[in-house]
Structure formats: structure tokens, C-alpha cells
């Protein structure tokens, strides 16, 4: 049974005037972040939990807009009153990352210098840059130390990066369905997605806004290929099999199989709602993510200053970031004698399992946040 959602929520904006030197070497002299909060920050400001989003999500983590069920937040099944991450206890923050397209400064925003959309001139952003800007948002909200930072997939990578870059500013990191870096295959899929976008004639090298067009075809194909990697072979087979939309084969290139119809629908929907330049940059941020690189590839050495407690979760049928990738993180954490628990959830849903309401998975998150809450109270 669905537990009650937090109800209607409102996005907020925070402006930052202090320039940020990005990892790529460029400087943004000012920017804004769009975020949402759920629950109440306690007087000691010790119950804040930051939720980091993955490739195509946003700051809208839980709740609805104007009572419209269709606008439900992307992790609403996990976060809310009485839910595994309980907003009756915790002050939860969702933030749209820098470079995003849901209200935070990104390629589709207006560059104040040129008064044109940034487009192709918007700099590359990295996981490190996101962590830095999220930490600055925390500071502005008066949060010195986060009780936890949680994320799935690319969001989990941000949680890991937090423990490396801001070791004193979080107590716990919950890393779900992530990896310590992308494999060649992961990068390969991202590159196909990027090629689809950049070769779309409506892309105009990233400056399509002025042309009043959108590279819909490219984004659509990018989303279709991404979607395949989020599902497992078995899950896809169970959901679609070889079902046809009509009774018989038509021997043409129309949408014949249900899976084709599904992918095209997902692709079309996405192409209308997501910015192509943001998509390109986020896939690059994924490719570049490799915190161990600064310690000659040794993840354990990279984590030597970390102090957080960790919960790492993977899913058996996730072939995008398989359990083996999570174990790499766990083993590096154990080598540093850091507190870490690891669960490998038996799920048929592939990478997308992290977004699903699976009892074994959600019970673990609930038990972990119960610990976080008790530890916070004991101090």
C-alpha cells in the first residue's frame, strides 16, 4: 500500500554571488540553485539529509505540485512522513545540480554577460563541482554537518564524493546502485547518446535556443539507449516480451513490438522536457567521475580522510552498475576501517530497482536512518 506523500511542495531558489572555480578551469561568477525541502530543520541543525539526483531527475524528490498526482517527486516512495527516510524526523533537501535544466543555472539559462542562453558556452561541470555547490547551499541554509547524504546511481557517486571532499560535513553516506567510476562499456553507452544529440541537425552545436528548435531526435535516441541500460533483460522480457501492438507482423518499419512503442514513448516524452546540453554535460560528468584517479587508481587511498559511516546497496540484476562495482567501494572502505554496511538486493528490475518500492531494500534504508536518528539524538 502506498504511504501518504508529503503533499504539495514548493521549489525554492538560492542565489550565489561568490564565484566558483570549476574543475574544468572555468569560473562562474554567480549562479543559482533550485531546491526543495521537506520536514523541519531542528534547532541544533543536525537532522538535515541531502538527496543527490541522478542523470535525468531533479530537485523535486518528494511531494506534488498543486495537488497533481502526475507531478509526484521521483523518490516519493522512499521519502515522506513515516517513509524509510522519514520527513517527520529529518529535514530533507533535494537540489537541482549546477548545469541542470530544472531551475538551477545551466546551459539553457541566460548568460548575464551576453543576455543570450549559455548554450555551447556553458562550462563542463563535474561531480566535484556539484558537491562544492551543494555544500555551499548547506552553508547558506545554516547546516554545518549533514546527518546524511543519499543518492542512487550518479546521485550515489555524489554521496561518495562528499565523503572525500567534505569529510567533516556529513555523518553518513548512503550510496545506492552506484560505482566508483564508469567502465569502458558505461562510457560507450554515454558516447552513443552524445553522438545522437550532437549529430541531430537541430542541435546547432549546442546553440539551438536562438534557432527556436530542439534537437528532439537526438535526445529521444539518447533517452532510448539510456533506458535500455536501466532495465534488465529479464525485466524487459517480463514486461514486454515479444508482444506486438497489433495482431500480425506488418513487414515495415512502423512501431510493431510493444518494446519499440515503449521506448519511443519514453524518448518523445523526455525530448520535450529535458535540455540537450544538460544531458551532454551530465553524461560527461559521469564519464569523468573517478575519485581514485588522484591516488593512482587506489580507491582506498582516496578515502583515507573520510570519516562518514556508509550504507552501500546494489541490486543483483543491475548490469549498468553491477554489485561488483559496489563491492569495490565497500572493500576500499573496509580497508580504511570505516563503518560500512553493504546489501546486495535480489531484484529483477535492473538499475532502475533503486527507484522502486522493494520491501527488502526500503526496510534496510529505514533501519539505517533509524540508526542515523538514534546516533544523532545520543550526541
Amino acid at each position, binding site marked *: 500500500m502506498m504511504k501518504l506523500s508529503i503533499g504539495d511542495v514548493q521549489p525554492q531558489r538560492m542565489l550565489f554571488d561568490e564565484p566558483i572555480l570549476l574543475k574544468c578551469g572555468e569560473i562562474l561568477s554567480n549562479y543559482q540553485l533550485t531546491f526543495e525541502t521537506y520536514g523541519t530543520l531542528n534547532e541544533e541543525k543536525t537532522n538535515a539529509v541531502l538527496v543527490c539526483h541522478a542523470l535525468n531527475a531533479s530537485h523535486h524528490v518528494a511531494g506534488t505540485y498543486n495537488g497533481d498526482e502526475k507531478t509526484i517527486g521521483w523518490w516519493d516512495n522512499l521519502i515522506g512522513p513515516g517513509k524509510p527516510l522519514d520527513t517527520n524526523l529529518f529535514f530533507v533537501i533535494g537540489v537541482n545540480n549546477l548545469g541542470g535544466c530544472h531551475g538551477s543555472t545551466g546551459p539553457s539559462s541566460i548568460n548575464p554577460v551576453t543576455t543570450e542562453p549559455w548554450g555551447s558556452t556553458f562550462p563542463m561541470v563535474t561531480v566535484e563541482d556539484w558537491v562544492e555547490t551543494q555544500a555551499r547551499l548547506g552553508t547558506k541554509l545554516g547546516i554545518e554537518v549533514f546527518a546524511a547524504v543519499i543518492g542512487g546511481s550518479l546521485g550515489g557517486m555524489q554521496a561518495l564524493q562528499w565523503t572525500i571532499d567534505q569529510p567533516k560535513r556529513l555523518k553518513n553516506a548512503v550510496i545506492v546502485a552506484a560505482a566508483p567510476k564508469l567502465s569502458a562499456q558505461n562510457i560507450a553507452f554515454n558516447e552513443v547518446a552524445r553522438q545522437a544529440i550532437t549529430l541531430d541537425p537541430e542541435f546547432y552545436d549546442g546553440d539551438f535556443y536562438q534557432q527556436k528548435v530542439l534537437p528532439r531526435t537526438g535526445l529521444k535516441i539518447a533517452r532510448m539507449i539510456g533506458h535500455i541500460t536501466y532495465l534488465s533483460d529479464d525485466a524487459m522480457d517480463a514486461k514486454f516480451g515479444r508482444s506486438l501492438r497489433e495482431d500480425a507482423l506488418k513487414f515495415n518499419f512502423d512501431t510493431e513490438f510493444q518494446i519499440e512503442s515503449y521506448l519511443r514513448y519514453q524518448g518523445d516524452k523526455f525530448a520535450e522536457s529535458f535540455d540537450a546540453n544538460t544531458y551532454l554535460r551530465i553524461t560527461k560528468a559521469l564519464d569523468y567521475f573517478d575519485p581514485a584517479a588522484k591516488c593512482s587508481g587506489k580507491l582506498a587511498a582516496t578515502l583515507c580522510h573520510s570519516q562518514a559511516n556508509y550504507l552501500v546497496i546494489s541490486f543483483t540484476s543491475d548490469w549498468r552498475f553491477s554489485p561488483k562495482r559496489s563491492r569495490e567501494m565497500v*572493500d576500499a572502505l573496509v580497508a580504511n*576501517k570505516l*563503518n560500512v554496511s553493504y*546489501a*546486495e538486493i535480489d531484484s529483477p528490475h535492473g538499475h532502475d530497482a533503486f527507484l522502486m518500492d522493494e520491501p527488502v531494500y526500503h526496510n534496510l534504508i529505514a533501519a539505517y536512518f*533509524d540508526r542515523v536518528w538514534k546516533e544523532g539524538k545520543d550526541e
Partner: protein
Amino acid sequence: MSRHNKVRRQDYQIITEMILDGSTVLDLGCGDGSLLSHLKKTRNVSGYGVEKDDRNVLASLSNGINVVQSDLEQGLAGFGDETFDYVVLSLTLQAVHQTETIINEMLRVGRQVIVTFPNFGFWRHRLQIFFGQTPVSKELPYQWYDTPNVHVLTINDFEKFCAHHNVRIIDRVVINETSRSINILPNLLGTLAIYRFDKEQR
């Protein structure tokens, strides 16, 4: 299962006595994490449990211990050499399939290993076999058809194994049902054996 829990408590008591304050422990097949939780309180250890079962992983997490979900039979790959002061395998040796692999892996990741198992050579077990039945006792509480145990063993079996596998026994405690330490005829009179050992240096 309360009779079995009593065996577990006896077992925990002796393991705790073998472990030094402030050490690091890997508990294989940690169940709900109660041994590690006990060691944390009484010996200030830091450590991790390894557990396969979903419910036990959740219980361990709720008990506030570090737990890594993994199947022991797959070995301990991922844990570095000599990562832990002690690797503990409590009341589980008789239930593992790959006995040699596990003991070698334990010796690799731990400086010392503590293993406990029910002694199949206990006289009452022998008596049951004499009368033609598979032994059932507090220590071996299962029927032949529902037991997880695949390699029941005696104290003599284990010591022979150690002699042939370059294992140096540091400590041995054998007890009976009333937790009394058995020094005479342990393989006949002991119900539970607790060994602490390491790799023989050659």
C-alpha cells in the same frame, strides 16, 4: 530454538575471552549481529559481519553493526590480506561446503582465526549412532532431513585437519553442556569445541 541459543551464549562467552580489547574482528555468518554487538560492548572491537540472508542483514543493521552481504562459499575476495586481528566462524564450520577454501581464506584475511563447532564425537552422539540413529542434540538440533550441516566433525577430525594444513592451534577450549571445561577425553566428553589458530610459520 532457546536450547540452541544457550549453546550460542556459551560459545560467545568463550570467544569473547579469546579476543583482546580494541581489536578488529570479521564475523563470518554473523546472523543478527549479536556476537559482534556483544564484542563491541565488552571488548570495544571494531568489525564487520558477513551474512548471506536478507533478514539477518537487516537485523544486523538494526543492531548497529557493520554487515556485508555476501555468500561465504564464494570466498572472501575483496577483503585484503591480514585486514583483521581475528576472523570468527561460530557454529558454522559444519555447515560450509568448501571447508578448505574457507579456512584458507580466513587465514589470509585474519591474523588469527577462531572457529567453534559442535563435537560430533560427544559420547551421546556416539550412543545415538550405536542405536542406529543420526544424532540430535542441543548442539546438533536438526533432523537428518532438515539439517543445514553437511560436514559434521569431531575434535580429532579437526586436529588432524590442522596438522595436514599447516595450521597452528594457539588455544583450544572444549566444554560440555554445563559450560564446564573438559580436559580429559575431550572428544568423548565435550559438546562444543572452540579453537583459536593461525598459519604455521615455516
